[in-house]
């Protein structure tokens, strides 16, 4: 098993008001089997032993599904592979490497400390319309409305978004279009989403703008880093939905 000696340049920032800077740390004998976050754990244990404040970073499931982990590694959200940071392993790096670790950068994702950012803007976009308005207690049988398999599968591909925000961090405009379009697409494709179709897309886009996310210029950087491979087709669909809603539906 390979062991790596690494130099880490890590963004340190005391709180949301502080001015941050890079600190350099040396870390030796890291097993290539370790995940990137386990490497960060080793760094933090090392710092703690030296009574230095450990590096704060968001992480939870470490299975690539909760969407909590959020680092920019060597300039790329989630690092060199198209996966979540927690699913990145040290076998992707070489002995002697210098690795730069920063928080996701976007005006709408303010840094709270070190590598931790506030992504509650995403929650507010969902609150604006990312749902089907049904109360608990529906008594329509689940098989009442057949949904063609290809449609259900496509809706699932959109619904698979984990809300990590890598799309925003990768975009030069910090646009949230891929995130918003994935949710809009899921409901646009399904029969359950039809009644609120026009209202939903307008509300969610308006909230996205209000949060300060930038505009989309179709460079596709978002999709290229998306750990769940959400495709640009979703953005095309969002644009079409938005236009149709604006032209044909009442203003909301």
């Amino acid at each position, binding site marked *: 098993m390979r062991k790596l000696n690494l130099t880490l340049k890590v963004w340190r920032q*005391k709180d949301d008001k502080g001015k941050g800077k890079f600190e350099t740390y040396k870390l030796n004998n890291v*097993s290539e*089997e*370790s*995940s990137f*976050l*386990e490497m960060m*754990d080793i760094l933090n*244990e090392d710092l*703690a032993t030296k*009574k*230095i*404040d*450990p590096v*704060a970073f968001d992480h*939870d*499931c*470490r*299975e690539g*599904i*909760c969407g909590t982990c959020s680092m920019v590694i060597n300039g790329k959200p989630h690092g060199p*592979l198209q*996966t979540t940071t927690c*699913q990145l*392993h040290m*076998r992707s790096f070489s002995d002697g490497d210098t690795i730069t670790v920063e928080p996701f950068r976007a005006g709408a994702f303010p840094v*709270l*400390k070190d590598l*931790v950012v506030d*992504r*509650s803007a995403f*929650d507010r976009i*969902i*609150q*604006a319309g*990312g*749902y*089907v308005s*049904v*109360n*608990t*207690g*529906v*008594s329509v*049988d*689940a*098989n009442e409305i*057949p*949904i*063609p*398999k290809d449609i*259900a*599968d496509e*809706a*699932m591909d959109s*619904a*698979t978004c984990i*809300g990590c925000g890598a799309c925003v961090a990768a975009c030069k405009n910090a646009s949230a279009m891929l995130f918003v379009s994935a949710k809009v697409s899921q*409901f646009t494709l399904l029969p*359950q989403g039809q009644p609120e179709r026009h209202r939903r897309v307008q509300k969610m886009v308006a909230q996205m703008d209000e949060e300060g996310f930038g505009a989309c210029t179709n460079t596709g950087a978002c999709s290229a880093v998306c750990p769940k491979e959400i495709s640009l087709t979703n953005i095309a669909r969002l644009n079409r939905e938005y236009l149709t809603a604006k032209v044909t539906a009442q203003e909301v």
Partner: protein
Amino acid sequence: MAVLDAKIPDGPLAEKWSKHKFNLKLVNPANKRKYEVIVVGTGLAGASAAASLAELGYNVKAFCFQDSPRRAHSIAAQGGINAAKNYQNDGDSVHRLFYDTIKGGDYRAREANVYRLAEVSVNIIDQCVAQGVPFAREYGGLLSNRSFGGAQVSRTFYAKGQTGQQLLLGAYSALSRQIASGKVKMYNRTEMLDVVVVDGKARGIVTRNLVTGKIESHSAHAVLLCTGGYGNVFFLSTNAMGSNVTAAWRAHKKGALFANPCFTQIHPTCIPVHGDSQSKLTLMSESLRNDGRVWVPKAIGDKRKPEDIPDADRDYYLERKYPSFGNLSPRDISSRAAKEVCDEGRGVGSTGKAVYLDFRDAIKRDGRNAIEQRYGNLFDMYQQITGQNPYETPMMIYPAVHYTMGGLWVDYNLMTTIPGLYALGEANFSDHGANRLGASALMQGLADGYFVIPYTLGDYLASNKFEAVNSDHSEFKKAESETLATIQKLLSIKGNKTVDQYHKELGLIMWDYCGMARSAEGLALAKERIRTLKEDFWKNVNVIGANEELNQTLEKACRVADFIELGELMVDDALDRKESCGGHFRVEYQTEDSEAKRDDANYCYVSAWEFKGANQPSQLHKENLVFENVKLSQRSYK
């Protein structure tokens, strides 16, 4: 302490819930807005409860320690959710789901609760489809099903290998809608550190804002704990890093009894441990056992590559020992069987602590495409983590801690022994007995939140008079200052061992002595070692930084302090239960062919433990389990 009253309604099993629903008092729509309800945790149970109660008109305050309610650990559930729809016409029914669950739990769950769970399972699927949850479908457009361990019917609904994600996002969207409407006030990055009891009723909680460190009080008429399980007491588990017992444990210390703490589930199909810097274990969904075959070499020390070992030299031990359920034997049984063959020295991989899960035959039979369709994302995840390609070489798997059947004791209404304090989902003990079947956790979380608590909570609110209590009340102030004192104590120790070092030590003790096999001797030793560890923790732990900041070390320290105390109670419980049942395997009590040997004459009860003060022995209360509808028998999957 009063005798435990489970409040199980009278009447025939199949009519209990409907009858009970009719007898429960209602709160009229105009009055609902006068009540405040606190929901802690936003996983399947919490998010569904918060949304449903807000829809009814209650004012809800919801809390999660994560940065968003959508990240609760329910999101990681892979395989599916059971429901007795019988869409496959293969003989399923509410009664069969009830029976499978009771039997799967090795006859240590309450009949009435389990029956209700099976009954409402069908409504869950209807609800989720209406929310736009994209379940897997057949070409005809109807919902698809697959099988899971412990069942001989196909009743599991799924969305790829991401069923938990899709169900949680459904509940999260319902919750988001209520947040937008103003009926739910959401507190992200906020951890509950105490429950406040005023005049014998739960009236609120004390929390810490994880960004600013601010300690705050929140008052309400009822408190719902939907805070998940305590598998992280083992340090290494499939739980998320943040999953913890703190909310439940603090409630326990305030008077809520803790039931069956030793009932933990070791899941048979996880990626094996690779080294000592490992932080967590990853589950490979049980659904893989629909097509994968589990085996080890017949001979000890057979070091050939798996592809080079012919069938004649392979031992498909699950198929051999349990021919009728084979690779789909329940989790506890499959885990123990894996341990057994590894203990015999036939384990594989660099540590010898792994068995093969082989898709060779399925790929030959159905083609690689079909397998990719079914499990593509799981295969990718495996390859990502291990660097090996499971299409070409068998997966290696080993059991790991996954779920905890034990939890806060609740009655049929999901109320703990503190009036007004409820526990839902994995945080309670009620439905899975000594072993949970696959695809039943999602079912229980959503059953509790969508379809049980909206009825039972109203009855409590309508039946009680409430004094006006707000967060300035002296009980809140007292709880706040106690919470702060504990935090300051942790920060002031400034010892020389890190929090993780203690957590890892505790985990090893629990795994070695209170894991897959337990003995009186080992448990006694564990108790001794946990006590020493606890003493050392409060003398030597090093928690860097201050309270008034985002301090992840402090968060961990608070949680580990509670895990250590819980660990001791788990050991006490395992010592008391001198029988083997489900996931609780006492080596002294086994049948001739090494299966769990229950003692129904003496142990057919729920152990409910009462906290009697720091460093005092806990007191055991027993709720006897009465079985009127199933016959207790030696569980057989042969």
